[in-house]
């Protein structure tokens, strides 16, 4: 597997794992509209993962198709950041996780639309339109819950502070991120500036405070070292194909 293929997995895995997390909410949303909204976002993300995995399957002869990539890898072979695999928690936690991720994805994909790599450029042109809606949706809820009742404010504040140490990893460049610059991937320090601006502005409007903004940022997911959550996600997501290999609906 070459570096370009690894990078496709990194992009696809972030989308698939967050998409799978949101899919857990199907039928369990706090209100019908939000149940539908979160599962629609899930669909967008799983669609994005599918595009990246299909491209991977075209390039790598050891896999047949996108399903094999999603269902036949173990947790150490997934390269998503830790943030997207964390528990859904309550609705506020789910929204905060989405907000932190979408605030990254929008400027990241916007930059990627300038890539000279045909797949990455087309992938970004398609996905960025959706990501903007995800950001708009989650930012509105951040404000509504943060600047809402005393209860919603407290729970939201707890969520953003719990998630905060997981937000840095998205924008900490490793060797592969550096290599990806050659394919038009952006400088993650530049993305971090835009991300911080969006986050600061929204948190302020939502009357939310991060207690320790400079805390050590947890990392490892991008290199295949995950929290215990990922194994549980995969156990459920992969069960059918592991138990009945090749099964089709």
């Amino acid at each position, binding site marked *: 597997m070459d570096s370009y293929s690894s990078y496709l997995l990194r992009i696809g895995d972030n989308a698939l794992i967050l998409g799978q997390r949101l899919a857990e909410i199907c039928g369990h949303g706090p209100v019908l509209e939000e149940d539908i909204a979160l599962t629609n976002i899930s*669909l*967008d993300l799983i669609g994005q993962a599918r595009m990246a995995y299909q491209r991977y399957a075209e390039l790598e002869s050891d896999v047949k198709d996108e399903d094999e990539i999603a269902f036949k890898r173990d947790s150490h072979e997934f390269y998503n950041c830790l943030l997207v695999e964390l528990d859904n928690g309550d609705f506020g936690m789910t929204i905060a996780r989405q907000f932190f991720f979408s605030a990254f994805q929008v400027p990241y994909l916007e930059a990627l639309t300038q890539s000279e790599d045909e797949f990455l*450029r087309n992938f970004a*042109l398609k996905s960025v339109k959706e990501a903007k809606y995800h950001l708009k949706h989650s930012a509105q809820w951040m404000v509504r819950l943060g600047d809402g009742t005393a209860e919603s404010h407290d729970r939201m504040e707890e969520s953003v502070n719990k998630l905060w140490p997981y937000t840095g990893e998205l924008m900490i460049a490793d060797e592969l991120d550096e290599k990806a610059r050659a394919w038009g991937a952006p400088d993650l320090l530049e993305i971090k500036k835009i991300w911080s601006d969006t986050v600061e502005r929204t948190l302020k409007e939502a009357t939310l405070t991060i207690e320790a903004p400079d805390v050590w940022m947890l990392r490892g997911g991008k290199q295949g070292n995950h929290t215990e959550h990922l194994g549980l996600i995969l156990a459920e997501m992969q069960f059918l194909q592991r138990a009945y290999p090749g099964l089709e609906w």
Partner: protein
Amino acid sequence: MSDTPDIANKYIEILEKVRDPEIPVLSVLDMGVVRKVEETATGLEVTITPTYSGCPAMDTIEEDILHQFKAHGFKGTKVKTVLYPPWTTDWFSEEAKEKLRKTGIAPPDHSISKADLMGKDTTATCPRCNSKDTSRISEFGSTACKALYKCHACGDPFDYFKCI
């Protein structure tokens, strides 16, 4: 590939029969999902593009296209999916918008721009009573491509096709 689909007239009639499974008042041509029909040595090659990345209707649309061409005697037809140019609601014809309105879905009422996505709430016109006194209930409606609105004049909720 340009923004205008490249489809010979003789295939239009066949493709008109392929409906969007989630919005059956529209054909895949009204939607702008079919971009091209090419004649190759082994049969036709139909190029389609998804509305949204995760649009669950794409597989059904592909099967329906293959079925229709087969029923019209075309053997060996293939369907190819492309991502570029990315689908946009700007591709809806006026006729398609009218069909949406008649079925109770507010069509996208303006052209796509950055401001629409990031800026203020878009306004939607009620497809039933034409009132502009409406408000958004949810950014996402019955499908990923629609938002849910409520009309304050006639009191009905309605789907709004988001500009993308």
